[in-house]
């Protein structure tokens, strides 16, 4: 019953997402593509870090593996790089599977480490993968990277070709529009899967491993197995996100999967509220779109100096605003954006349901401990 408003708002959001491309410019479409791709990565990471309690700073490494597997398996062999020329759908599946496999291979190492030690060991993974990407240029195209074949299903291409021109009800559906719907489909499925996982047997097992490995084991949960499955699932998500990023760019290069990208994923899930699938999505929207939007529109702000004049120019201001926004969320919003939204909902709800005597308890505890 309490699900109903939630479902309705979800449906409304979905309808809006379906309708948006009809009115949006290419800038917003492209931003949307990046947001949806990173959102899937963030959802995977929040399953690993927020739900299963395994800190990872190496998410971009798994995304890179997904992106390159996709580019390599769907690409054609040329004089400089090799490729398998597989159908893109298969490439997407391969991206998820190979990433998941690498995650599974890494999990015994992860099992030995905890907390920030684990986080920083996975940070090392980013550098190792980057080194491989630059050096295995036979497959990766080296530092410059390689281009990515557009996504296509049964001859229908998600680019500006095949068909060259497509319009529905008078609105042109360019490659960006087509990709938008593909990404939307993937994102909705990924979020749905993650929510199911979170709410079911596996999610409960992960959360218990996070809270207390001893207690989890006493309930019959295999701790090593639970950690491994969390790593596998999260890596598969990262792999898909990587492949989507590759599609959104039209190419792959090691720079896209830098340390910054890894850290950005972590920023998304912490800002959104650890462990919350919706929070991860909101965090991805925030972290991915804010710099893009600021870069696009900050020059419209009148009080800033012209670029190069030595004053505070729009671009610098945009970057500082981004940093300040992160600080502000963490200082003022407990539980991140998702936590704030939860409290807002609780406040808007007229009366608490029967049998929930202490809905306001957490916020009260905050005040008293201050």
């Amino acid at each position, binding site marked *: 019953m309490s699900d109903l408003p939630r479902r309705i708002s979800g449906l409304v959001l979905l309808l809006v997402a379906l309708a948006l491309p009809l009115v949006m410019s290419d800038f917003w479409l492209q931003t949307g593509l990046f947001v949806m791709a990173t959102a899937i990565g963030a959802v995977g990471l929040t399953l690993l870090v927020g739900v299963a309690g395994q800190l990872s700073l190496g998410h971009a490494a798994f995304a890179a593996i997904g992106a390159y597997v996709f580019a390599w398996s769907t690409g054609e062999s040329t004089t400089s790089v090799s490729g398998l020329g597989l159908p893109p759908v298969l490439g997407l599946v391969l991206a998820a599977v190979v990433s998941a496999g690498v995650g599974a291979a890494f999990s015994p190492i992860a099992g030995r480490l905890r907390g920030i030690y684990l986080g920083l060991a996975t940070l090392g993974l980013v550098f190792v993968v980057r080194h491989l990407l630059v050096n295995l240029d036979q497959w990766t195209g080296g530092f410059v990277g390689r281009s990515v074949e557009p996504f296509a299903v049964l001859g229908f291409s998600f680019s500006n070709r095949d068909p060259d021109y497509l319009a529905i009800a008078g609105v042109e559906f360019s490659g960006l529009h087509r990709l938008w719907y593909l990404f939307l489909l993937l994102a909705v499925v990924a979020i749905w899967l993650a929510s199911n996982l979170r709410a079911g047997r596996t999610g409960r097992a992960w959360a218990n491993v996070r809270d207390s490995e001893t207690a989890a084991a006493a309930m019959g949960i295999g701790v090593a197995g639970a950690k491994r499955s969390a790593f596998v699932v999260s890596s598969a998500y990262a792999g898909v996100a990587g492949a989507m990023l590759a599609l959104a760019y039209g190419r792959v290069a090691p720079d896209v999967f830098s340390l910054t990208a890894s850290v950005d994923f972590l920023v998304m899930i912490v800002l959104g509220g650890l462990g919350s699938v919706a929070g991860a999505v909101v965090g991805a929207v925030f972290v991915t779109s804010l710099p893009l939007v600021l870069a696009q529109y900050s020059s419209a702000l009148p009080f800033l100096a012209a670029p190069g004049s030595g004053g505070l120019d729009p671009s610098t201001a945009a970057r*500082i605003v981004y940093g300040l926004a992160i600080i502000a969320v963490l200082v003022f919003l407990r539980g991140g954006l998702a936590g704030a939204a939860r409290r807002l909902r609780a406040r808007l709800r007229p009366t608490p349901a029967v049998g929930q005597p202490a809905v306001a308890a957490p916020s009260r505890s905050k005040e008293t401990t201050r």
Partner: protein
Amino acid sequence: MSYLLEQVLNGLSYGLVLSLIAAGFAIVFTSTGVLNFAHGSIVLLGAYLVAVLHDSIGFWPAVLVGLAGAALVGVAINAVLVRNLADKKPDTAAILMLGVDIVLLTELTRRIGNQVLTLGAPWGASVVRFGDVSLPTGRVLAAGVTVVAFGALWYLFSRTDLGVGMRAAAADGPTASLMGIRLSRTAATGWALAGVLAAVAGIFLTSFPAPGVAPTVALSAFAAIPAWVLGGFDSVPGAVIGGLLIGLTSALVTGYESDLEPFLGSGFGEVAPYVVMIVVLLVRPSGLLGSKEAVRV
């Protein structure tokens, strides 16, 4: 032979500077539980202050201002932001520091522009020769200062009330406060110390053989992370050993790059510290000198 010796000395002197940064990570982490992602911009800030001030007030006064400025910024970050976090958890604190890093680094980058700001260090580009091995004076000085700094840290932590109090607070904060030790004060001291160490490191990282202050200096803090981690999160001596190990590794991998390239690929020097770190962590999951408890964050 002298080539090897020279590379080893290069690596060790660079490693000592890294260990100053790594020790800063360790001190902030033990005194407040924060993974300080903004440490790099504090390194840069210290050097930047010296670079812009040395012309007007002279090099040594500028150094004092640089150290004080870095320390103050650290203390302020802790007092204004870290202590007021909505969720006082290590992961939120780490992300908070990322936000701080973005703000600081952007502003410093804007101020530096594309200039290479020189420090005006009196040792200039001079070198010291030991037989047929030569080392930049700045590096020799860095090694000396680092050794003195760690001596001072040792004295502080084992011979003074404040230092013993800080260790007590780091080991068990609630119990330490039962001894009348104010955790806010030990935390502030920790941040100030880390700031001073960062500024010292910044000065040596931006004086000869490096040409001057450039925004990329902030990245050197990332090079210190493997040193810190493999030494152990809560261990200052660990940071020294870690720094030396990483400095040596980088110097040797770089110095023999042409011999190693066929096996390891080019540019392995950048990855080598992380590979060493992962290997050490696999053997010792809490680093070389870290205590087991520190793992529970």
